[in-house]
């Protein structure tokens, strides 16, 4: 499906298949088209090309209020002039359910989100987290065929966010509700999703389970966007023995054959900071870079080092403090050697 605004293509030939009960996240920087894609699914925007198919039916020409898709908005969009109970009952009233059923269902929903007894309150009397739960209850009350969540935790502080992520997952999973979640926060995406679709400039670059996205990013953008990574210019030396030979920042590495690129030529090597280790001298069995520690940061559970190697490359290394042998870490100015722990986790990409 494609969606254009005049000369700008906001969503470019995107194709996405979401299975029943799946939790898929659209992840990407702002402006990547994820919100536009969401609006097209919801029916607030029409695709310029392509189709939206729901339960094997093409719904391009179905008006948004008939799609039975539940949406939770970034700022919850609770109706301020209605009580919590009326908010939750809204969808049911629109479907003209009998009053008794509505009452029952509202009570059910309030129990589900642990807000029993809050029915008579107004949205502005509730905290952010409580409003979030009412928004969910409102949407789940009508048993939609699809749930869309548009950066719903954006307005919450970090601790609350993590709590709500868990809560929402706990609510949705037993219902086996098919969900599409939009966020720019990768941790959130990784934590909650069955699959993550990484988007950039209107296209889906990779759509895979979180582990696959992290361990085997398909291209440089995904590698750079997800987690932290060291990107080194390298040269492919062609296949040799069992694997791929690569020279990165002056050190030759032998990587598994499926590490990414192939053949010969310019490339970029990606190593994650937690996949590197710092030693006083180069270990005898592994290739290593030598350099000087530029800074050493103590960030809670990990020590982060930046080591300058080959005079130009700055390698970020991240080591858990528990392992640092008695809390002593390396310090600025130390001459050290940096080596890769697990060559299988190293990726190579063709140069841009």
């Amino acid at each position, binding site marked *: 499906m494609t969606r254009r605004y005049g000369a700008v293509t906001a969503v470019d030939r995107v194709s996405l298949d979401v299975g029943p009960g799946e939790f898929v996240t659209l992840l990407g920087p702002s402006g990547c088209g994820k919100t536009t894609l969401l609006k097209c699914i919801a029916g607030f925007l029409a695709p310029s090309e392509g189709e939206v198919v729901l339960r094997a039916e093409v719904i391009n020409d179905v008006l948004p209020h008939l799609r039975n898709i539940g949406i939770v908005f970034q700022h919850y969009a609770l*109706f301020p002039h209605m009580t919590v109970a009326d908010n939750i009952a809204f969808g049911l009233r*629109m479907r003209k359910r009998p009053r008794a059923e509505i009452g029952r269902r509202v009570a059910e929903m309030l129990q589900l989100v642990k807000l029993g007894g809050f029915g008579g309150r107004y949205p502005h009397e509730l905290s952010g987290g409580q409003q979030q739960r009412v928004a969910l209850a409102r949407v789940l009350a009508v048993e939609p065929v699809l749930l869309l969540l548009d950066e719903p935790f954006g307005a919450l502080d970090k601790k609350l966010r993590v709590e709500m992520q868990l809560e929402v997952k706990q609510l949705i999973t037993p219902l086996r509700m098919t969900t599409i979640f939009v966020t720019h926060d990768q941790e959130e995406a990784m934590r909650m999703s069955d699959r993550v679709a990484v988007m950039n400039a209107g296209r889906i670059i990779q759509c895979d389970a979180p582990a696959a996205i992290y361990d085997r990013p398909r291209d440089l953008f995904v590698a750079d966007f997800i987690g932290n990574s060291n990107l080194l210019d390298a040269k492919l030396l062609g296949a040799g023995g069992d694997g791929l030979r690569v020279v990165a920042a002056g050190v030759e590495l032998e990587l598994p054959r499926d590490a990414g690129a192939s053949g010969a030529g310019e490339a970029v090597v990606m190593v994650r900071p937690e996949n590197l280790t710092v030693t006083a001298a180069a270990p005898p069995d592994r290739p290593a870079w030598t350099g000087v520690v530029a800074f050493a940061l103590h960030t809670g559970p990990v020590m982060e080092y930046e080591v300058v190697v080959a005079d130009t490359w700055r390698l970020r290394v991240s080591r858990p403090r528990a392992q640092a042998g008695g809390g002593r870490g390396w310090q600025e100015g130390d001459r050290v050697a940096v080596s890769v722990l697990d060559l299988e986790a190293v990726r190579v990409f063709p140069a841009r």
Partner: protein
Amino acid sequence: MTRGGGGRGLSRRWTRHLRLWQLVLPASLFLAVYFAVPLVMLFWWSFHAPGVAGLTLANFGKLLTDAFFLQTLWLSVRLSLEVTAVTLVLGFPLAYLYTRLGPVWRVSILFITLLPLLTSAVVRSFAWIVILGKQGLINAALVASGLVDAPVKLLFTLDGVRIALAQVQLPFMLLPLINAMEQLDPSLEKAAVSLGASQAKAFFRVTVPLSAPGVVAGAILSFALTISAFITPAMVGGGSFIVMPTLIYQSAIVTLDWAIASTTAFILLAVALLVVWGGMAIARRYRYGPAGA
């Protein structure tokens, strides 16, 4: 720190003694003397009748028992309510469209709204005289389309004044409405639609109730200004009927009966204030806390 030279030092010396709040004094004193005092005087006049010593309600008695006066008062109130209702019906859709359209439309709408506001009331009323006349645009269109056989008398009638006044007051209804509707969270309507409300239902159940404060603000302004409008009813109505402002003008300038003039003005203000107060009471009933989370 830079240090000023001789002349600068002098001005800085007295600016140091100048407190910021004192800057509001010139305007306040001016308005107190030239705005508030005359109004107080006006009220004072309405409680004093010629030939009667001291404060008296004689003026009020004279007017409020006069059938013609009461008729005029009722006409003014009725006319203003009708005009306000029309401006609401026309203004609401336009304000709604404003919130849904892009910047070019918005500027154009504001342009078309502000231009008449800054044009003299004389000019606007004159335009309506031309349009409502027997050879005016409306009659020309009616006759040409065959809806009527002969030109309809619109000028110098109450209907004509209604039509003209509604256009003159429309900007005053529109601007507060636009202000109020702009502050509504746009995802509220989307939320209603996603829950199964058609566009119309979402509009009536979500947008309209939440725009109530804007409606009240616009209605209050529109009513207060319409009931005290002098020029348009005078020009477009001709001599065929009188509204309160006309009475005030006549008694002040023509018959020079200032007691009556001031009393009429007082009653006019009182009625307008009553409606404003009533409007604000209604507005308070519809206060929903921060609209739009």
